[in-house]
């Protein structure tokens, strides 16, 4: 039997334990947590992990999810773009 | 606001149907086939209204509960075929020896006339066996009329064909 884990981010294999450990280390800002654990930086672009991570973070810090997400920024590309599209550089 | 028991069980009791005006009166039930619409929530839907060939179902607003005119309803089963919630049934308690129930059916195999099928209650209990006497189809919903043991007419709400 494989070790039991609870996966939050399926792209980069971030677990609930990883989030709780990071909070223990003193990370108290959700955007910092995202950068530290690369949550939402995988090919799904945060479509499955950001909200569940925000809820775990909110529960652990006794904050509301709204507060936790208050400085969540979405930057392009919002979907994965294959490298060949960048060969000549995206024009827009 | 109090949660009605059917929201905990997924099963609506006859008393609740009667309270909501969805149960035909005893006298009407004994006279012949009639529609029983087990639709206790205000779903924004009125599909049974335009399809009823005798214009026996009324709704003022889209979200109203259906009001059946028991006197003009002939128990034809069109509402059974078209109801998106599969919540319409026809029961016939008028015969001496058997009751008759018409239910929607969307499973394979499709029962054929003469088949013996398992009778299921609202709770999913196997309450007996019955014989299929009529089957017709509309947009992939089969409308199955089954002859059931006397006394089960208000119990049986689905049939299951054993493979």
């Amino acid at each position: 039997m494989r070790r039991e884990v609870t996966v939050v981010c399926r792209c980069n294999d971030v677990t609930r334990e990883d989030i709780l450990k990071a909070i223990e280390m003193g990370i108290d800002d959700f955007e910092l947590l995202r950068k530290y654990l690369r949550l939402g930086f995988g090919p799904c672009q945060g479509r499955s992990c950001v909200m569940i991570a925000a809820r775990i973070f909110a529960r652990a810090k006794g904050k509301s999810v709204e507060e936790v997400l208050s400085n969540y920024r979405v930057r392009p590309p919002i979907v994965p773009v294959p490298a060949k599209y960048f060969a000549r550089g995206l024009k827009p | 606001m109090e949660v009605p028991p059917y929201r905990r069980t997924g099963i609506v009791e006859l008393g609740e149907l009667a309270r909501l005006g969805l149960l035909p009166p005893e006298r009407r039930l004994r006279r012949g086939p009639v529609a029983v619409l087990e639709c206790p929530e205000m779903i924004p839907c009125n599909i049974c209204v335009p399809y009823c060939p005798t214009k026996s179902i009324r709704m003022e607003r889209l979200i109203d509960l259906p009001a059946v005119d028991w006197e003009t309803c002939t128990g034809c089963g069109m509402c059974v075929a078209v109801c998106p919630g599969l919540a319409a049934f026809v029961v016939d308690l008028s015969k001496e020896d058997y009751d008759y129930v018409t239910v929607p059916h969307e499973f394979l195999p499709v029962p054929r006339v003469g088949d013996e099928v398992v009778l299921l209650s609202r709770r999913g209990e196997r309450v007996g066996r019955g014989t299929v006497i009529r089957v017709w189809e509309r947009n992939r919903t089969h409308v199955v009329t089954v002859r059931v043991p006397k006394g089960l007419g208000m119990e049986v709400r689905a049939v299951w064909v054993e493979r």
Partner: protein
Amino acid sequence: MTFRRGRRLTFTFEGSPLEAYEGETVAVALYAAGVSVLSWSSGLGRPRGLFCMIGKCSSCFMVVNGVPNVKTCREPVREGLAVERQRGWVPPADAAELGEVETRELETDLLVVGGGPAGLSAALEAAQQGLDVLVVDEHLRLGGQLLKQTHKFFGSVELFGGLRGFQIAGEYLKKLESNGRVRVLTQSAVYGAFRGGLVGVVGRDAHYVVKPRAVVGTPGASERYLDFANNDLPGVVGAGGVQTVMNELGVKPGERALVVGSGNVGLIISYQLLQAGVAVEAVVEILPEVGGWFVHAAKVRRYGIPILLRHTLKAVYGTEKVEEAEVVEVDEGFNPVPGSEKRFKVDLVLLAVGLEPDARLFAQCGAVMRWSPDLGGLVPLRTPGLETSVRNLYVAGDASGIEEATTAIIEGRVAALSAVSKLTEGSRAGRAAEEAERLNRFLWEEYRASPLLARARRGKQSVTVSEEEMEKVRALSPPPVSFG
């Protein structure tokens, strides 16, 4: 339900030949052939199988004809294709080797992002009102989640009541095809909007830069994920994912299933599993009452499926795929009750624990966003005509707040008519504005008057502001992007 399958063909999986049908995706063809592990995860090397099935997660990435990171749930299977499992996240080969992609510039009156119920109705309405429309959708064909809805929809005849979801999509596609004003890009995704009102699209074979006069964003929703032990094991699948496998492609998804969540999605999927010949052990619901509408609950109860209220999923077990699921009762504070665990021998665990609006397009454009638990998450603030704080960017459907397909269709029309009223002049503009108002009156005063929609109604009310208020919001938070 019956299925018409395409031509038989052969492809290879790790060197061995496998049969498939034309029209299937690679992921589904493998699933039908009994392959449950599609890849091993990047950090922990855990087996991963199908999960979302609608191109939103990354669990189905495989190496196809030597190219890594191919989303196999979106990749049509073809004769002779060579498919291999992928270990972790493979960096792409040298960009130059992959070749270049041509950039094409497109202009349109209205860009519709997403071809689900809201997008289809917006596109048709706008085209009928004389606008040139471009629809961009990620899937192989338009229809969005309607394509896998085999149940009949509620409503009135005018609202497609009584038709099955895929039939509603069919009605729209017929009308769109016969209308010469609609162009469609499938297997294409909007990756961002930029200064000057340009929108970037990753197309199937080309890169598009679109200059629209207005945009109706209908990107839909994502399925909510749940944290429990071994939640990434193959066999743990989103409810929508299983609907794709089963209802859109006609493949039986498993033998015995446990469904988590008793909202309409969980109840409908339970019934559909039963139709596909899958035994449903139970529907698990953490709340003390059924989440979905009574008639859907009654449908599963009469076929003997139990609904376990105040229960949650604790863990799943298995080596390469789910073999067992463990459920536990919860107390009033939603804490597990020790000793109340029950185990089910199942090979499929369906997550139907709710949807979240996929509103990232709006956030990326700088639209003012609001958090609404009633609507499932972050959504853009909007006017009654569904315009966001980004001028000429409209929102409709689940991305505007989770509701249902019929309201999505109505919202799509409202958004399109609002756009028409701004982009055209004279009597046409006036008529469009009147029609949008009439639809809004019906939506708010009649349709949403149902207590079953009270929560969504409250949520949508809380994120809708008048035109005047929106102008004040724009003055305070000027968006970096604007269209038109």
